[in-house]
């Protein structure tokens, strides 16, 4: 466990100095501020539009950070050969993968805490109410981010950083479109096509489960069981990806 903590702490120190993090943070904070004006475009509901826009911005920021930093975590170590300093010591490769993940996740939690404070301030400025559902929405974005980082780490154990970035982006898009698959599945007739769609639906993660923006905007409360299942869902996918990443990384010929 000590090894895991050391690798995570080192990754945290390394990623917190990453310029990409600050560039993304700057743009997200700027966009959240700008969303005040974007909300003004709406005819009916300024605060709701601002909330939706702010949460969507944070979700996309999570994707960008997961792709640009997450994918490089292992790739850079291999490319710059700094990895050998670690794996030549009695450190399990699995700990290395898990440590990298937890290090980056901690960095992003700090970054997202800053974004959330700015977001909450802006909502408050517009006269909105900061209720429990908003907090759940932010926490679910964190859960989505955790899945995205683990997926990025998984792809980076399989292929080059550039391809891994592309896979991560496709994964994000497919994950959000997966919700449409469920609708199509209901609409389709016959047996073969729905079976294929159903398989895709259950194999691919449905990242839309982490998106409750519509429910916040239209004030449709979700039961607490939903959040429990959503966090469990995120944790399970993260665990699965990290487990597979460890297996592939363990077998990798370095």
């Amino acid at each position, binding site marked *: 466990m000590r090894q895991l903590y050391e690798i995570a702490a080192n990754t945290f120190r390394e990623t917190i100095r990453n310029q990409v993090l600050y560039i993304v943070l700057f743009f997200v904070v700027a966009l959240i501020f700008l969303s005040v004006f974007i909300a003004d475009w709406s005819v009916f509901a300024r605060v709701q539009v601002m909330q939706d826009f702010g949460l969507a911005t944070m979700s996309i920021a999570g994707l960008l950070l997961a792709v640009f930093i997450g994918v490089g975590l292992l790739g850079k170590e291999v490319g710059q050969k700094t990895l050998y300093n670690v794996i030549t010591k009695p450190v399990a490769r699995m700990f290395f993968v898990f440590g990298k993940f937890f290090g980056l996740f901690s960095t992003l939690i700090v970054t997202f805490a800053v974004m959330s404070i700015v977001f909450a301030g802006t909502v408050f400025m517009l006269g909105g109410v900061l209720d429990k559902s908003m907090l759940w929405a932010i926490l679910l974005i964190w859960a989505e981010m955790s899945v995205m980082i683990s997926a990025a780490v998984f792809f980076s154990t399989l292929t080059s950083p550039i391809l891994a970035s592309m896979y991560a982006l496709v994964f994000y898009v497919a994950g959000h479109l997966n919700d449409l698959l469920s609708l199509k599945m209901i609409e389709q007739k016959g047996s073969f096509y729905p079976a294929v769609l159903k398989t895709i639906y259950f194999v691919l993660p449905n990242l839309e489960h982490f998106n409750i923006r519509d429910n916040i905007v*239209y004030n449709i409360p979700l039961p607490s069981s939903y959040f429990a299942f959503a966090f469990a869902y995120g944790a399970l*996918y993260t665990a699965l990806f990290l487990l597979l990443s460890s297996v592939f990384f363990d077998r990798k010929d370095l």
Partner: protein
Amino acid sequence: MRLVKLLVLVVICSIVWILIAFSQSKLTYIKQNHVAPSSMAFVPQTDKIKPFLMGFNAAYADFLWIRTTLYFGSHVLTDQQYPWLIHMVDLVTRINPNMYPAYEFAGLMIPDICKNPAAARVILERGVTTHIEQKWKLYYYLGMIYYRYYNDREMAAKCIALAVMQKNSPGYRLAGLAAAMFNKAGKPEAGKKFLELAYSLSENPEVKEYILSKMAK
């Protein structure tokens, strides 16, 4: 040993995947019962959005038009309340002033279903200033709104008269209608003029005979 490891891995992955599938089903089930209604909360204000469309006005208007029809369709089948319909149609016609179906919808549906003939009149009055092929129909709908909802027969007759003069209009039929409306508005001279116009426009001898009999009355 390696086989055992692999087996353990497969078993763990399978268990995790089963749990994932279970959570997935539960989440889908819960969310299905908490779906947000189809709404127009994100409909922007025209003057704010126009500079950002970067010339894609028609495409954006098409998109909004599709949303409008979906909104209308979903509410026709449920509560039959349309609080945003007028704004949507107005927005579509402002973003793309040549969008004929939106004007037609405004002329035919808004006065009745939204109980707001004034809104339909304003949209149509804007529509007749554009270069739409079937502009005569817009004048015709406008005339009908004046006739039916405002009881202003003279204005209705003037609108129908303008419809007659537009390209592609069924001239003699509308001219007859305009004449009848002018007569009802107490302006038989103007009515007679339109009957003469209808007579000159018609190529059908039976129609011509009918118009002559009307003129004789």
